[in-house]
């Protein structure tokens, strides 16, 4: 035996030695202020005007500054603009820019540059920001540091749009020179400048010393690594290959809390998960579920939200019954969450005169979490007299079913907006672009229209309270829970404060 094996042995040994050496050398120290963040997916185009992914917004937080930002309490704070003033009639807003700011290519950040960006967002073909800035009629440059946005009608939601991708300011010179290539070599205004991107592997940024807030940026280099599998992402953090990860799986929370190599940070998000019911969109809405509110009420009464949260997510999320999460000024605690009542659910089904068990079809995305939730709902609803058939589809197909009205119920989420208009109008107004069940209630429409045109918080609260009450009654969506953003990071990372929007802001973050 040894005779035959001999020719390969020395080579084998050599390779083994080489690999062992590589393993030994691997323990090279990471640069002291190099933060490595694990993201759930890869970002899309790095151009704020055409970008659509959530993780893209995380990268932009380092790369591109916005006119304004908001803090964890959802209060607006200055970023590129230091102050802003609404006109008396609410149809114009004037911004003052911070003096002496520069883009990463050294060009000055002034009112002309801002106007160039906003005009691009409004007019460029393929801009996904057009609808967000739809109220803007014109932009006037008053002086190099002052500009005014004139609106067609009052729109209090504008500021929240300018605190996101619509308000991110890129270098006009780079936009002109790079054209469509900008997305692969972005030149922006944020605390970090673009270094390189290897698709599905990493996006690397380095500190921009010319940034107006450079004194509060302690990280020299940040690498974003997309790692879709939650277990693998968490293992990478535990093994020290990452310093921070977003969206830790709730089921890993226990392990993370007891692991001395890991710290956890969490916050309730602005988004929600819900059952979207087809009440008015094509032939598939023409069922007792779509047409008879009693059947939908029965379905809600069959559900125990806390149990779903406990079983599927180890109780990590915050249950809810309305578009905005608890803790925000547009959440209405007096509209209490419906408690499970199987007997009442059965009674309602009988009153509605439907056959029992009553068959319904529910679409879920083909992720483990969504399917688990689907199965829990299926078994809860069965006790109340529903026979839920689960159909599992991947995301792109599900979007198509929604757009075509080819569904009875879809378990679907919304990532959330800081202004309630984003959570309400899009999904519940009869002309809302994502109101895929075509829910239509004139009272809700009126409230949502007025709420997006008045600046007075108390009045808006009253209007959203009215809309929420109607929606809870009509149940075109049954809101289930508000997910929590769960981050895990190395004990070496300090100064990180989560925000309800889920975006990782690097101001004040340090590595020890």
């Amino acid at each position, binding site marked *: 035996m040894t005779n*035959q094996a001999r020719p390969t042995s020395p080579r084998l040994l050599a390779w083994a030695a080489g690999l062992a050496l590589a393993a030994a050398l691997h323990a090279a120290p990471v640069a002291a202020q190099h933060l490595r963040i694990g993201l759930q997916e*890869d970002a899309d*185009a790095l151009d704020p005007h055409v970008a659509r992914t959530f993780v893209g917004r995380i990268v932009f937080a380092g790369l591109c500054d916005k006119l304004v930002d908001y803090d964890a309490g959802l209060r607006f704070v200055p970023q590129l603009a230091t102050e802003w003033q609404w006109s008396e009639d609410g149809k114009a807003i004037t911004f003052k820019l911070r003096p002496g700011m520069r883009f990463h290519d050294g060009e000055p950040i002034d009112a002309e540059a801002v106007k160039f960006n906003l005009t691009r967002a409004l007019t460029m073909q*393929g801009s996904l920001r057009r*609808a967000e800035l739809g109220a803007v009629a014109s932009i006037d440059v008053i002086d190099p540091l002052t500009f005014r946005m004139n609106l067609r009608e009052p729109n209090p939601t504008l500021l929240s749009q300018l605190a996101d991708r619509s308000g991110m300011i890129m270098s006009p010179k780079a936009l002109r020179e790079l054209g469509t290539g900008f997305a692969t070599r972005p030149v922006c205004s944020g605390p970090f400048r673009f270094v390189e991107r*290897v*698709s599905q*592997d990493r996006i690397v940024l380095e500190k921009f010393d010319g940034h107006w807030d450079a004194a509060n940026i302690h990280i020299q280099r940040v690498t974003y690594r997309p790692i879709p*599998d939650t277990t693998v992402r968490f293992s990478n953090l535990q093994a020290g*290959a990452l310093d921070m990860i977003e969206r830790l799986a709730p089921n890993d929370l226990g392990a993370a809390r007891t692991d001395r190599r890991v710290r956890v940070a969490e916050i309730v998000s602005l988004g929600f998960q819900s059952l979207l019911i087809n009440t008015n969109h094509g032939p598939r809405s023409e069922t007792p579920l779509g047409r008879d509110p009693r059947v939908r009420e029965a379905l809600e009464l069959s559900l125990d939200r806390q149990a779903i949260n406990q079983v599927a997510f180890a109780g990590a999320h915050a249950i809810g019954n309305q578009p905005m999460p608890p803790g925000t000024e547009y959440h209405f605690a007096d509209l209490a969450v419906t408690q499970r009542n199987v007997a009442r659910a059965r009674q309602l089904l009988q009153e509605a005169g439907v056959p029992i068990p009553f068959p319904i079809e529910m679409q879920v995305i083909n992720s483990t979490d969504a399917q688990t939730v689907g199965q829990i709902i299926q078994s809860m609803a069965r006790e109340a007299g529903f026979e839920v058939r689960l159909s599992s589809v991947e995301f792109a197909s599900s979007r198509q079913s929604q757009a075509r009205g080819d569904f009875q119920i879809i378990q679907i989420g919304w990532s959330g907006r800081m202004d309630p208009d984003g959570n309400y109008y899009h999904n519940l107004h009869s002309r809302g672009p994502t109101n895929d069940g075509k829910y239509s209630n004139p009272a809700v429409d009126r409230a949502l229209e007025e709420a997006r045109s008045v600046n007075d918080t108390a009045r808006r609260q009253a209007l959203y309270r009215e809309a929420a009450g109607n929606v809870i009654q009509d149940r075109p969506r049954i809101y289930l829970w508000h997910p929590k953003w769960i981050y895990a990071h190395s004990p070496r990372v300090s100064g990180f404060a989560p925000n309800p929007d889920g975006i990782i802001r690097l101001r004040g973050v340090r590595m020890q």
Partner: protein
Amino acid sequence: MQGFLLSRLAISMPTLLIVTVLVFGLQSLLPGDIALVLAGEENDPAGIAFIREKYRLDDPVPIRYLAWLVQVVQGDLGHSIKTQIPVTDLILQKLPVTAQLAFWSMLVALLIGIPAGIIAAVKKGTALDHTANAVGLAGLSIPNFWLGIMLIMVVAVEWGALPPGGYTPPTESLADNLAGMIMPAFVLGSGIAAVFMRHTRSAMLSALTADYVRTARAKGLFERTVIVKHALRNALVPVITLGALELGQLFSGAVLTETVFNIPGFGRLVVEAVFNRDYAVVQGVVLFTATAYILLNLLADLLYALVNPRLRG
């Protein structure tokens, strides 16, 4: 030999064309609308209309295919719909990664599989043969995904001996690059090694009973010479074919291993592109890997001739 090469290359052109037609056709059967996915949560109708127009999503499939083909013939594989990165750049970014992983995995497979197959054949029926068979069966049956996660948990998380995954270009740090390749190459290679082991064993068994081997032994040659120079040489022919096929497969990406070890190779690129309905990327990568596959098979044919002079005619 030259004529053989040219005729083989000529046959491969229609094959490539058929592959692209098939992939294009199958993609068009997929449900789901990329424009809706790309438009993001806001679902702005103007944005959706623009995406449809820009990527010709409303055109009939044959027209889209022809447009793509014309582009490809001009050397342009198009841009990723999702990231706007040129497909050629994406392929050039992934190729060294996938090639490197394929190389190391193949090396692991060859270094384990072939010697184990020879030993098992030579020592047929002994404890060594049974052990090699049992280990081979285990190598075949253990899912890559599970083995990968286990290795990460133990070797990377518990012992901290190797990085849990990711890819470092060798130009950045050769040590990190090699360290990062050890576990994925082992996971991928062990499965292939088992296949090699079983094929080598059976090919060697039939070679060892052949007349020429008996003659070689009768001439009084050393057993080692008989096995390595006479039996193994013939036994290797089917193993080379298999190796080329396996290597071709490795070049089209190892999705599960790449996912577990977070390696940005072809496998993850294609899978994500399919889920995103990123047609240009899927088409470009398929075209590229199909070409690689065909070339590797051609290489295998040439290797036969080297190993077995009778095939040179």
